[in-house]
């Protein structure tokens, strides 16, 4: 059981700074997901833990030991690659036991460990096959097997599911969650898929252009996004954002001049802010209670609910509203939309939560 700490870690490629000072402590046995858009530095960060990228400045500590300059194999980590990175000329058993064979471990011990790992992953019947004879999901299992057999202190996953189709992705997601609870190991997982992040993580680290935007449990990020970036990134459909202005008594005036929205914003009158409301906290209301009038442009039927997308003068982007699955308005219809449940998020001009 091992914790993992970043102390002011930076990484530059020439003049380009990719990781701009990361401080983070991952607790022992925790499942932490790095999430963010392409180029935010999340994969670079993972590769720095692995030792595949050097650290420009700062310190990486695994289990109390500074590993910043330790060779990859001696860091006690194992990594699962997006492309699986299985050795094509070796069968599954040889792939899994590659590291043990390199270390000249006794043959009986290798066979025993390979069998144990194959049992955990239910791939015993595949041990003699070559990677090209396996399906995507089976390959991913073998790649995970190669990681497990090392008994690593920290597991690293680099977008391990992005090459799989949707159904298999859900299945492997459950598998990885099961593995985490069985092994109890510290896991660091990189993805750009916020659904994967929400479902797997104990804590999510949202990264944006080399900086941490917010760290928290999935529900903390969902319910209390620290800034506009996290608000946009976490949750599907994305949070609705309305440019607004504070008027008297902390109420909000939406940009397009509709009537003020009751709120208690602790900011001076006339301050420009952004009002954020999740789709489930909006509803079709009576015209008197409506915050805005919007034209329905599309409706997505998800079975359990319907997501309506509406065009409104108050918002530059389409407004998403969750409706019960029985409510199916016509496309083109003008609908009165108001707050329901009263959960709103207010962000200041600098993008941070007020």
């Amino acid at each position: 059981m091992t914790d993992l700490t970043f102390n002011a870690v930076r990484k530059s490629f020439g003049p380009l700074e990719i990781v701009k000072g990361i401080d983070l402590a991952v607790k022992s046995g925790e499942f932490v997901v790095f999430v963010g858009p392409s180029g935010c530095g999340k994969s670079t960060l993972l590769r720095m833990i692995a030792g595949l990228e050097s650290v420009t400045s700062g310190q990486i500590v695994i289990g109390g030991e500074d590993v910043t300059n330790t060779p990859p194999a001696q860091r006690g980590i194992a990594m699962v690659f997006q492309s699986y990175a299985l050795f094509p000329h070796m069968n599954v058993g040889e792939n899994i036991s590659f590291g043990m064979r390199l270390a000249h471990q006794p043959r009986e011990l290798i066979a025993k460990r390979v069998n144990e790992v194959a049992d955990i992953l239910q791939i015993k019947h595949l041990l003699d096959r070559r990677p090209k004879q396996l399906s995507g999901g089976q390959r991913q299992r073998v790649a995970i097997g190669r990681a497990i057999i090392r008994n690593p202190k920290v597991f690293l996953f680099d977008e391990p599911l992005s090459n799989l189709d949707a159904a298999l992705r859900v299945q492997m997601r459950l598998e990885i969650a099961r593995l985490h609870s069985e092994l109890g190991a510290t896991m660091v997982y990189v993805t750009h898929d916020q659904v994967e992040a929400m479902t797997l993580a104990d804590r999510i680290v949202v990264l944006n252009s080399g900086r941490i935007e917010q760290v928290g449990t999935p529900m903390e990020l969902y319910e209390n996004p620290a800034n506009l970036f996290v608000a946009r990134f976490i949750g599907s459909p994305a949070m609705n954002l309305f440019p607004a202005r504070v008027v008297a008594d902390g109420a909000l005036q939406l940009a397009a001049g509709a009537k003020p929205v009751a709120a208690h914003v602790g900011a001076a009158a006339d301050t420009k802010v952004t009002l954020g409301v999740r789709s489930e906290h909006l509803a079709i209301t009576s015209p008197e209670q409506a915050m805005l009038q919007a034209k329905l442009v599309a409706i997505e039927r998800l079975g359990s609910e319907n997501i309506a997308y509406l065009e409104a003068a108050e918002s530059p982007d389409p407004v998403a509203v969750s409706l019960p699955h029985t409510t199916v308005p016509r496309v083109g219809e003008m609908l009165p939309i108001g707050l329901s449940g009263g959960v709103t998020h207010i962000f200041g001009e600098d993008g941070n939560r007020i």
Partner: protein
Amino acid sequence: MTSAAPPRAGAGGFDAWKAATLAILIILALVFLAPTVGVLLSSIKSTRDIALGNLWSMPNSVYLANYIEVLTNPAVHTYMLNTLLVAVPATIGSIGLGILAGYVFAKLPFRGSNLLFLVLVAGMFFPPQVILIPLFRLFNGLGLIDTLWPVIIVHIGLGIPICTLLMRNFFATVPNALREAAILEGANEWQVLTRVALPISLPALAVLVTLQFTWIWNDFLWPLIFTQSDNKRTIMLGLVSLKGQYSVAWGVQGALSLIATLPTLIVFLFFQRYFIKGMTMGAVKG
């Protein structure tokens, strides 16, 4: 635009394009095989048969004395042995160095490595005539003339550009993630090369072994320059030396020519299943 599509015959139908391709290939094959058949026919004819008929005439009976004469000639044994003593180490040496250089250029680039690679590959375009006299003087100064050493050394040197080029390009197709996965498992760079990169690159290796071995085995120029005494000659020089001053023993020369090509044929047959794959590598995905 459908009319612009090339005419395609249905299943089992006559395809003019395919037939023409096949015809051209057959004609080319015959043109390339004809000299060999001529030599084969000469090699199984007696001197009298050769004198009476022409190159293409069929012998009255299969005459094997030419082969017996060649195979029992101790000089031929020496030629064969000398050629092997040159071709095997020079092939191994040039490919070995090509593998090491190719791996570095493909997987461990450093500042200026692309330029260095270009310079190295440019070595392929040197005409041998340009370096012939300097090399002769060099090896003469080293006292190595009339030994096999200069032939081996020159072939290793001349082989480095093509070997490096081919191996670098093949190693470049080996995903970086494989190298990184191996390193995470505790492999050092040498183990990545020998346990992962090389086994995956067998097709490229097979092509190289066949090319290099054939080229070195068949070489005439460098042994001619660097060796003088008969017991240092390679097989290609031996073929010429079998010619008398005023007469040519066509039958014996034919037999020796065919025997001389056997080792390259064996190498090709041994590696051909990889060779075909290697020749088409990169042509299709997957």
